[in-house]
């Protein structure tokens, strides 16, 4: 069972190379942008000397930490957005592509159950793609910190103090890991819905997946004048009960980080217990389980000839 799962997940990597190509591409783009910025900044020699001097002497650790955290959060968001798009396309193709090219007949000729196959796709969407994104985030951060350190050292600054001494690496990475993984679990009803559409639709999986998400709230509003579906489904992304205070405006205000170093901790803003005890999270998992069951049923019973 576990051996089969590993083989099946490995197969997903072979088939959907975007799982690792996307984080690699984003990491490269971020790194190139940072490089371009550094080259551009090098043109202002005098201002630069003053900035480094200022950063070394005047600013406190809090400011430096906050500046680096802002960079970290920014790049992590890029990965998170790409991850969301990638997951949608992955799920919609995962059980549709094999029917389109009829390779499903080959896969089903091997001693693997439909449940094992569908679950391997679910694990890929909820765990593997997010983990690949976190690895991408960490690698991008490290690469950019190294590049920036070298640049700062060359310009006469103390990279040890300015960059490495100020960077809350572990805090940031743990936070990224928790946010990415929790997002996968939180959005699992959508992931399972996309898998179901992928296994069920005869054509146009993207359209078939999103049409109900638009039509149902519209019809509900026209006929019932209520917004239950829209609130429960369309607003779900924003409603993740993971953040203590999701107030980015005050997060980056000077007052906020002068109040103490804890304010800068991203981890400090996450409330894992609140997330794990949230009825909405468990309700979502239940919906996910229902759609996954339906997906397995469709793959098993549908005649593909």
């Amino acid at each position: 069972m576990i051996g089969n799962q590993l083989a099946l997940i490995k197969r997903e990597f072979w088939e959907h190379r975007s799982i690792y190509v996307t984080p690699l591409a984003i990491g490269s783009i971020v790194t190139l942008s940072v490089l371009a910025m550094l080259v551009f900044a090098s043109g202002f020699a005098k201002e630069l000397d003053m900035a480094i001097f200022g950063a070394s002497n005047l600013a406190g650790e809090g400011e430096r930490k906050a500046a680096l955290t802002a960079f970290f959060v920014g790049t992590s968001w890029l990965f998170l957005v790409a991850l969301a798009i990638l997951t949608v396309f992955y799920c919609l193709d995962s059980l549709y592509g094999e029917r389109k090219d009829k390779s499903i007949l080959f896969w089903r000729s091997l001693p693997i159950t439909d449940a094992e196959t569908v679950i391997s796709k679910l694990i890929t969407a909820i765990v593997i793609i997010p983990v690949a994104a976190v690895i991408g985030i960490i690698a991008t951060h490290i690469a950019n910190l190294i590049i920036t350190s070298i640049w700062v050292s060359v310009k006469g600054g103390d990279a040890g103090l300015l960059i490495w001494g100020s960077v809350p690496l572990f805090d940031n990475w743990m936070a990224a890991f928790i946010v990415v993984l929790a997002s996968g679990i939180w959005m699992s009803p959508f992931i399972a819905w996309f898998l179901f559409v992928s296994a069920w639709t005869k054509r146009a999986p993207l359209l078939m997946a999103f049409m109900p998400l638009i039509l149902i709230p519209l019809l509900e509003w026209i006929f019932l004048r209520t917004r239950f579906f829209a609130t429960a489904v369309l607003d779900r992304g924003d409603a993740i009960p993971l953040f203590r205070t999701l107030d980015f405006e005050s997060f980056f205000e000077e007052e906020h980080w002068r109040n103490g170093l804890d304010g800068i901790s991203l981890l400090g803003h996450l409330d894992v217990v609140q997330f794990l005890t949230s009825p909405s999270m468990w309700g979502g998992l239940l919906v996910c389980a229902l759609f996954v069951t339906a997906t397995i049923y469709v793959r098993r019973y549908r005649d593909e000839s």
Partner: protein
Amino acid sequence: MTSVVNARSVSKHFGAVRAVDDVSFEIEQGKILGLIGPNGAGKTTLLKAVLGLTDCDGELSVLGLDPFKQRKELLKNICFIADVAVLPRWIKVTQLLDFVESVHPNFSRKRAEGFLSQTKVRSDAKVRELSKGMVVQLHLSIIMAIDAKLLVLDEPTLGLDIIFRKEFYSNLLNDYFDEERTILITTHQVEEIENLLTDIMFINDGKILLDSPMDAIAGSYVELMTSGEDAIRARGLGPIAEHEMFGKSVLLFEGASRDQLDGLGELRTPSVADLFVAKVKGARK
């Protein structure tokens, strides 16, 4: 003899259409059974039921298992090629071997690589880069490297040229088949496989028209080529089919003794194709 497939009153309906209609048969170990039928006769549906890919009514047991309920267990000992184009096009040959090796307990990678080394299939190639014939060779190499008790082939050589087709069947017979194994095969090109079959089954409109060992065909069926007076007399003996060839009448008899027909014309054992046409036309009357 052990029975590999045992079907009792098996039916499968799609709405009002009876794709397989109350069919009973048995396949014994060590046989090569040809399942012959026109398009839409129910062949593929029957194969799918045997492979556990679709459920059906009636009693069906394959290798002592319920194919639909115990599909995973069954597929450890049963292999099939459903159609030529089913290998995923994005996969590399080595990846394919890796995958089958890790999920199939009865797969021998060494054997598969041995078969592949006799072909032009490169191990670093992707399936989409291979010709149609090479894809079939690859698929067959994998299938033959699986130590299975039952091999099911559904139109395995569709769309291949004659060289690949001949090679396919000779590989199958020489490198794979033995008395432990059983092969169930469907094809339109009956004449190409009739020499390698041990048993034959005709199916039309979901019903079995003929289920017989190949060597019993000669005893049960005889074809008479005749003309003129003899033809009229022969018609009186109740042929099951008749057609014209080179200005002569060719009459097909079932269960008639050769002595009775001797002297009325030229006698011979009908080809499977002729017998098939006669049976299907007879059933449609």
